[in-house]
């Protein structure tokens, strides 16, 4: 059994976008804060910190899920994918990102990192979704700018339909 005292800093090692990284976390440190403040990876955004807005969504062990509802110490040894890992190695936007760009699927971009990660996993599970399925998946995100329609269009386009 693993036990970590409240003020103890535990070493946490995980794979983020294929790279092994590690840092220290007290039990109460949110995974989002670990990524942003310990790892300096600011791509993952934080909105509500209670699971409602979706901004912090990343892929953990192949599951799209909220990183604000996870504590870093829970994630030792796990494999994470974040928005920083989406672009091609030469820095070019990937298909999904390009579709967001072309469809005006973001304005301020606050919600975008989370939606991109949800959509990445969602398209992996369901490569040819219909618009209703996309909307249902999107119901787990809040976007204050776009009105969602452009996001639906972008995901639909990225699915090659």
């Amino acid at each position, binding site marked *: *059994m*693993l*036990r*970590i*005292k*409240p*003020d103890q800093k*535990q070493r946490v090692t995980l794979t983020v976008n294929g790279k092994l990284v590690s840092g220290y976390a*007290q*039990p*109460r440190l*949110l995974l989002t*804060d670990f990524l942003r403040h310990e790892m300096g990876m600011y791509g993952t955004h934080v909105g509500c*910190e*209670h*699971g*409602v807005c*979706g901004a912090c*969504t990343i892929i953990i062990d192949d*599951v*799209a*899920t*909220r990183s*604000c*509802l*996870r*504590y870093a*110490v*829970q994630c030792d040894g796990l494999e994470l994918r974040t928005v920083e890992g989406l672009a091609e190695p030469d820095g070019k936007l990937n298909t999904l990102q390009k579709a967001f760009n072309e469809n005006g699927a973001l304005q301020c971009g606050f919600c975008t990192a989370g939606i991109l990660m*949800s959509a990445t996993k*969602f398209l992996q599970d369901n490569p040819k979704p219909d618009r209703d399925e996309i909307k*249902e*998946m999107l*119901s*787990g*995100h809040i976007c204050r700018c776009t009105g969602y329609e452009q996001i639906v269009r972008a995901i639909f386009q990225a699915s090659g339909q």
Partner: protein
Amino acid sequence: MKPVAFEYCRPDTLEEVMELLTEFGGDASIISGGVSLGAMLNMRLVRPKALIDINHVLELGNVEFDDATAITGALVRQAAAQKMTSLMSGVPLLAMSLPWVGHYQTKSRGTLGGSVAHADPSAEIPLTLVTLGGSVTLRSPSGVREVAARDFFHGLLTTDRRPDELITALNWPLRRASTAYAFEEIAQRHGDFAITAVAAEATVAIDGTLANVSFGLGGVEDHPIVADTAEFIGRPATRDTAKEIAEVVADIVDPMVDLQANADYRRQLVRVLGSRVLSSAFNEASAVREAA
């Protein structure tokens, strides 16, 4: 929006969970998916001394069946349950209610047991368990007990679970003969907690009358309830009966009032959605009866 400092404990076996519950009792919070508890922790609505993370207790992730029951371990995730055909066909009401639960990104992690432990009055999973007459298995250092779901939920986020108990499993009655089910709700956005959710189970006798009705209501009172429908047993399984039940029940419930809806609106939802699910269950059960 950051939790209080707590000790993190990650047991690998049920015995270790029991040791921790002996040590901490009510000073510990038990976390599975963390979809509800994570929010409570981050908002400091709960301030535990220790967080017991049961995600590594693999035996809690099993689904088993006996003649009349599906037994889902506390760690069965909502999305995984929905993909399990044997469970969905065995417990049709759960198959109908799960699509209303949460979002793609929360169901992937949230568990059936966690929703029951959290006991939000409008949550779909507790309502489903109560409507079907299922039960909750709890384990403490001093033993195991099973509590009927109808006795388990006491009020807003309050259950029969004692501080030193862990929910180990939920017990879902399997589909019964000549019986049909229906589920509906109204929420602000699909996947949000329901303003009002209704569930129905109906069994129709050979002569087309009601042999059994269970009419469950979520988001109406401070915990999920099953309306008293005894006076309607033996009545014809028709749309008129459905409407009458919903109307009678809407008048006797004592609805919550919150920012989303007042009591009148909730009563109206009980009437409208209630008569819809009841008549759908009656129709379907009559059809199953005739086919049999």
